[in-house]
């Protein structure tokens, strides 16, 4: 997550679930933890048993709220306003943990005089290009140090050139680039000028103060619908439970990531936690709750367009046409990310083996280049427009699980071929038979030319392999059974596919086939006719001279003598042992449980744990003792692996011109950051501004109370006929809807709607509405309702509940409709898919859509067949949305009114 990556240097959760039990206060926001992560929630209950206060801030009163000490209802999508209010409360009452802030954050850094804040530009930062919607971050830079080194002088020159040239050639480069900070902060040019007194008017601390000054409790009430009393209760609980003696933790999940300002929501929490001194300390931190088994793993070893394993960015056609150019952005900067060259070279070695030599840049040229955004939603648009014709769906069901289901299905219907690998016959494989567009007549089976291969998949017990769970822990699964009949693992499928393609191309002298033919692709099969997955893990771990497994990424070399499939996972196969398979029972170890599974990086459980000690290396307090400097031994010690150079003294000051890890100071806990500090202000690395700022969701019933700028100016807009957007403040779509999941189901439902024991627990899609909305619209508890957006209309059953609060925003009411999203046309229990309602406008950092939108709701079932299309069309007409035009361009200011 770039929110965390840009703030601290790594995108993973900063702590581990068990450590939540050490917290004195836990703020759960953007997460319905008890419902979505029930077993993880045991540690929250544990903390509560020990006396911690648990606060749940959420639009709905959920099963998490039921256990919390305090539930604060909030208007969906306004979290930055609330958290910004908390930051303002901390700063204006001097409640920050000043020693921590001064030593471990960039509060003291002085920012370029060219920087202009949203205060100055009414909702925009300096550097915004309204034509492209992109920011040029050059004016956000740290002021250079007083006595720059030669290197730094060179960079200053570069930057001046950049400034004069404008940002043109940088724009495309930004496509989700921030995701590359999953393990390695953005490379600022220097540690920069600091004013340790925090008084300089352009130092981060003062900028922060000014930026959040208008986020008052009264403003929070106007924006979020939270009363000042409730706001102060939360502020009081958090601040009184932070400091030397006490720590507070924040848990979030897709309630934050699924917004057009998702990364910035997380950034706000990162700023708050840094100010309160809660990062790197037991019972503190930010617990990023990933949704599914290996979401963390699939970003660490990504199947994402913009990064390679270990968050190494995919090369971009504009800047990276050689190995040197590719690693040049980061190489040599302070911190461990400055060592990117050995990581990148070792990856190329593991891809192309002997073919990768120093002479040919280790086959750098074999890597395809990006030119912009190639993310999922953009690709779906390309499918509709006929620019992408072959599609692999591997355990994913976008026809139900992705935003704007219609777009997804129109894309699927326009392919040449589609491979679906799943355990059950999911909607994405049957859209041509019985999809909603077949019902409405928008598509006809005969007309759909997509050739479909449904290949049955092996289940989790029928293959061996590792998942990386929410606290960055790799855990190995052994194989229990052979997969039945034609079922196979994905490992088998891709090994086999690679073998066949390579065999068919064998002998080709076509230059474009070289990367395939030179690929190191020799995977042995085990007894069950599946590829040996431990060998793949070993390749990921990396090997050195003599084909020995490596133990740590510090062993990686840039000369081609080492190969490593994912540098941050280096060590998972140390000593030729599958460390992810370690299963020492918890009763045989302490709470850190270092001998269960393996955690990246280097088996560290709490990241940045250097910050658990004061600048002198002593614990901040006995109660919160974790890692400390042992002067006799000359090393850092404690129950966890130090997230620091193990023998670097607390007072160490790096030599001038030191590079990489050598440049890390003795009190720089954030070792992946170029300056070793937690970033209150992000001079680089976040596409939509250095400081989180409240913008309304792309669809909102109200205008932005804080600035003239209504929506995130940097958000990515997907212009497509099937993706119309409801206008702001529309009378036709007066209500907010927010989507979510239920304990009893799993994402798009393929793994839950098909099981009797889960289906019976939540057998039908429903909406949750407040009694007030039910009265207003005549909705009957248990009856049917039709929910409409400009995209589509769906029917669901109605639950009227006091758990859904009508929110008061100043002089008006806002009603929210809750919609779980697990259903589709197939399975034991069926129903309309909620994702058909969701629009696609994306966060510019990670290209994720906003789960919140506006809607209308009416009693009764929806029209059927072609009548549905005209029903929605009528809504669009009334809302003033032109039929075939892509609506909503921010440049037109009418909608701001």
């Amino acid at each position: 997550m770039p929110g965390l990556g840009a703030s601290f240097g790594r995108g993973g959760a900063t702590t581990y679930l068990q450590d939540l039990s050490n917290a004195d206060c836990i703020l759960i926001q953007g997460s319905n933890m008890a419902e979505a992560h029930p077993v993880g929630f045991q540690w929250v209950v544990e903390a509560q048993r020990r006396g911690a206060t648990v606060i749940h801030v959420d639009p709905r009163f959920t099963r998490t709220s039921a256990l919390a000490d305090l539930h604060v209802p909030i208007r969906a999508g306004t979290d930055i306003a609330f958290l910004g209010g908390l930051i303002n409360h901390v700063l204006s009452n001097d409640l920050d943990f000043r020693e921590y802030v001064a030593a471990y954050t960039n509060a003291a850094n002085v920012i370029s005089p060219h920087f202009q804040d949203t205060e100055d530009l009414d909702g925009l930062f300096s550097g915004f290009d309204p034509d492209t919607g992109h920011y040029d971050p050059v004016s956000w830079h740290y002021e250079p140090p007083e006595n720059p080194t030669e290197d730094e002088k060179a960079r200053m020159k570069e930057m001046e050139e950049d400034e004069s040239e404008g940002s043109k050639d940088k724009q495309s480069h930004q496509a989700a680039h921030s995701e590359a900070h999953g393990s390695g902060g953005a490379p600022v040019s220097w540690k920069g000028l600091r004013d340790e007194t925090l008084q300089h008017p352009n130092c981060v601390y003062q900028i922060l103060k000014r930026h959040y000054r208008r986020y008052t409790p009264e403003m929070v009430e106007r924006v979020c619908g939270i009363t000042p009393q409730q706001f102060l209760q939360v502020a009081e609980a958090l601040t009184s439970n932070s400091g030397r003696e006490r720590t507070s933790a924040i848990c979030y999940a897709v309630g934050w990531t699924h917004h057009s300002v998702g990364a910035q929501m997380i950034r706000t929490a990162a700023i708050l936690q840094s100010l309160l001194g809660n990062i790197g300390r037991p019972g503190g931190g930010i617990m990023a709750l990933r949704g599914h088994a290996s979401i963390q793993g699939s970003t660490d070893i990504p199947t994402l367009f913009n990064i390679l394993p270990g968050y190494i960015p995919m090369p971009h056609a504009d800047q990276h046409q050689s190995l040197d150019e590719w690693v040049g952005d980061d190489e040599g900067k302070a911190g461990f990310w400055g060592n990117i060259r050995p990581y990148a070279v070792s990856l190329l070695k593991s891809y192309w083996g002997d073919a990768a030599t120093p002479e040919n840049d280790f086959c750098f040229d074999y890597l395809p280049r990006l030119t912009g955004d190639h993310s999922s939603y953009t690709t779906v648009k390309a499918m509709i427009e006929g620019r992408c014709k072959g599609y692999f769906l591997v355990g994913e069901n976008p026809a139900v699980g992705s935003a704007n289901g219609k777009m997804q299905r129109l894309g699927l219907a326009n392919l040449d071929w589609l491979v679906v690998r799943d355990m059950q016959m999911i909607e994405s494989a049957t859209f041509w038979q019985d999809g909603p567009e077949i019902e409405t007549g928008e598509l006809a089976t005969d007309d759909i030319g997509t050739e479909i291969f449904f290949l049955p998949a092996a289940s989790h017990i029928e293959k061996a392999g590792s998942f990386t769970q929410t606290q960055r822990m790799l855990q190995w699964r052994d194989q229990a059974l052979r997969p039945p009949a034609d079922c196979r693992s994905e490992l088998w499928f891709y090994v086999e596919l690679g073998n066949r393609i390579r065999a068919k191309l064998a002998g080709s002298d076509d230059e474009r086939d070289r990367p395939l033919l030179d690929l190191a692709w020799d995977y042995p099969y085990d007894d069950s006719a599946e590829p040996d997955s431990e060998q793949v893990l070993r390749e990921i771990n990396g090997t050195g001279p003599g084909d020995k497994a490596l133990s740590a990424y510090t062993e990686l070399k840039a000369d081609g003598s080492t190969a490593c499939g994912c540098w941050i996972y280096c060590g998972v196969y140390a000593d030729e042992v599958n460390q992810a398979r370690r299963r020492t029972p918890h009763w045989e170890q302490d709470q850190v449980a270092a001998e269960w599974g393996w955690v990246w990086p280097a088996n560290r459980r709490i990241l940045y744990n250097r910050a658990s000690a004061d600048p002198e290396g002593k614990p901040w307090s006995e109660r919160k003792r974790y890692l400390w400097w042992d002067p006799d031994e000359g090393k850092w010690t404690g129950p966890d692996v130090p997230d620091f150079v193990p023998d670097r003294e607390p007072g160490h000051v790096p030599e001038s011109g030191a590079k990489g890890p050598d440049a890390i100071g003795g009190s720089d806990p954030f070792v992946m950051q170029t300056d070793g500090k937690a970033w209150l202000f992000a001079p680089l690395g976040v596409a939509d501004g250095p400081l989180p700022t409240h913008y309304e969701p792309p669809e909102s019933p109200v205008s932005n109370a804080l600035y003239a700028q209504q929506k995130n100016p940097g958000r990515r807009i997907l212009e497509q006929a099937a993706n119309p957007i409801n206008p702001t403040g529309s009378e036709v779509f007066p209500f907010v809807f927010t989507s979510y999941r239920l304990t009893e189901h799993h994402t798009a439902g393929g793994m839950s709607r098909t099981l009797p024991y889960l289906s019976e627990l939540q057998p039908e899609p429903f909406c949750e509405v407040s009694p007030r909305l039910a009265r207003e619209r005549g909705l009957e508890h248990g009856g049917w309702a039709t929910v409409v957006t400009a995209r589509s209309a769906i029917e669901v059953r109605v639950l009227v509940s006091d758990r859904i609060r009508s929110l008061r925003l100043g002089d008006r009411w806002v009603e929210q409709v809750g919609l779980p999203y697990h259903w589709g046309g197939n399975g034991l229990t069926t129903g309309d898919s909620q994702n058909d309602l969701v629009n696609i406008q994306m966060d510019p950092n990670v290209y994720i859509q906003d789960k919140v939108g506006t809607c209308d709701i009416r009693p009764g079932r929806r029209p059927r067949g072609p009548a549905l299309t005209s029903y929605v069309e009528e809504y669009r007409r009334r809302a003033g949305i032109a039929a075939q035009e892509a609506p909503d361009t921010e440049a037109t200011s009418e909608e701001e009114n």
Partner: protein
Amino acid sequence: MALTSRIGDWSLLRQLRGRDSLGRGEAARSERSRTLRPRTVGADRVVDSICPYCAVGCAQKVYVKDERVVQIEGSPASPISRGRLCPKGSASKQLVTSPTRVTRVRYRRPHGSEWEDLDLDTAMDMIADRVIRTRREFWEWESEGRRTRRTLGIASLGGATLDNEENYLMKKLYTAMGAISIENQARI
């Protein structure tokens, strides 16, 4: 004799002879109840696994007998989950043994109106051909004068139940193909 032994087992006699004079406990216990054992005891092997649903990563024990799963439950040894499972994790056995699970390749030809059978080997071969064809068709050496060496004609979307090893090989193979529109649920 079967009859005499049946009479000898007659609970009523045990009731009259033993301490359980009201026939509510020991006397009423059947032979089956006396010798009952959990089915996990008879398992041929117990295999360590991890729950495939959410990201908490609860440890599971999989009990296998006669090459069938007889039980999946939480492994108490895990420091994260301590043996506990949510309803989804608890339903894992049903996930694996679901009667609606599809275990054979299904094929839909272009413009077809029905699923057809297809041999796995043939399917793999056909897919490899499709990849090669589409890759050629949509190959791009350059874009606006910049070397790109890629194809935008092939895309992939993976779920979050993919193993690290699987993700690794997917990205490796796709990258060698030049396919870059490779995405994952991590972004959805």
